[in-house]
């Protein structure tokens, strides 16, 4: 029973990892690529960690897996925010279908005043 759950969690985790990589390859600009890759890979790694913790089963492994999961879930959003900020400040071109660019609008309003 626990073996089946482990197998399902591992398969789900690798599927989300593949999804993140495909999103990184197929999306049109940096910002969409980032949102595809970071969120899917966080969920995928969470599934892999849960599956492995269930498979190993002893307290030391469970604590280590939980601490890796907590660390990644805390740091990946921070890292992607820093990259997005750096990319925007460096004027990386947005996708032509982009609808909202609030920073540019704010700058335009400040110049009009």
């Amino acid at each position, binding site marked *: 029973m626990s073996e089946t759950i482990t197998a399902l969690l591992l398969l789900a985790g690798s599927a989300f990892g593949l999804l993140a*990589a495909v999103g990184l390859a197929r999306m049109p600009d940096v910002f969409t690529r980032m949102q595809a890759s970071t969120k899917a890979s966080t969920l995928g790694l969470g599934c892999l960690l849960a599956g492995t913790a269930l498979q190993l089963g002893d307290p030391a492994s469970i604590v280590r897996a939980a601490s*890796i999961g907590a660390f990644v879930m805390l740091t990946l959003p921070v890292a992607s925010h820093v*990259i997005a900020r750096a990319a925007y400040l460096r004027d990386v071109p947005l996708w032509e279908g982009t609808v909202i660019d609030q920073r540019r609008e704010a700058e335009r309003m400040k110049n009009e005043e």
Partner: protein
Amino acid sequence: MLETVTLIVLVVLAVSLLIAFGRLASGPTLPDRIVAMDLIAVLVVGLIVVSAGATQERVFLDAAIVVALLGFIGTIAYARYVEREHD
């Protein structure tokens, strides 16, 4: 059954790594490459964790912690560099 599943999972993660390497090579901008590096770090942590389960080798989990730490610090350093270069 679990052996077959582990093999499939490792192959799928390796294919995802290859696709991420393609983005790392093709760019087109520096932030794209940093995002690809970030995803590669997370996928490598996943690979190490799965192989820790497959080989019952608990030390691999400590290695995974180190790779997660280095990936985060590397990403932050690259992003700061890109931002600094702009000024």
